[in-house]
């Protein structure tokens, strides 16, 4: 069972590594921030799968912290950092 869970976590990690391209060549600032939010959601999934696969229940708490603070980052981005210079380039 543990082998199946860790291989699912590996596939989602590959999805994260592919999503990094959008951070590097995103045309607007919101695209980069959305890719960071993708990292948050996929990181939660990886942590849940690893908590089952490695038999460490503590990882569920880290997944909860991931879920909370990824939202904090994107809300701060919308409220504070997204203005005309970094934003609407298209």
């Amino acid at each position, binding site marked *: 069972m543990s082998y199946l869970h860790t291989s699912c976590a590996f*596939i989602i990690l590959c999805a994260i590594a592919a999503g990094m391209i959008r951070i590097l060549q995103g045309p607007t600032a919101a695209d980069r921030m959305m890719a960071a939010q993708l990292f948050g959601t996929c990181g939660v999934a990886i942590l849940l799968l690893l908590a089952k696969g490695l038999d460490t229940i503590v990882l569920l708490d880290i997944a909860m912290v991931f879920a*909370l603070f*990824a939202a904090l980052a994107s809300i701060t981005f*919308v409220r504070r950092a997204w203005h005309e210079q970094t934003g*609407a380039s298209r």
Partner: protein
Amino acid sequence: MMTLLDNVGMLCIFMGLPFFLTGTVGLLRFPDIYTRLHALTKADNVGLGLITLGLSLQADNLFIVAKLILIWILVLIASSASCHLVARSAIQKNIHPWVK
């Protein structure tokens, strides 16, 4: 009985994986910020819901099930709130949606 629940949970986890891959492909391939938001927030949350369902079918006690469901609800609230904020402020900044 236990093995049946484990197998059904594993099937749910395997069903959740293509949603994550689809979300990443949509983030890379879609032409617009709104379509990318759509792919990202919806597909990933469905995938995470299926993985949560599968893991809670395999969980040992009810406390872990409650924690998994709490995590999923938190991710749902967070991603829908940030999706609406980003889309609304993109409309306010006159970024036009992609046509055709």
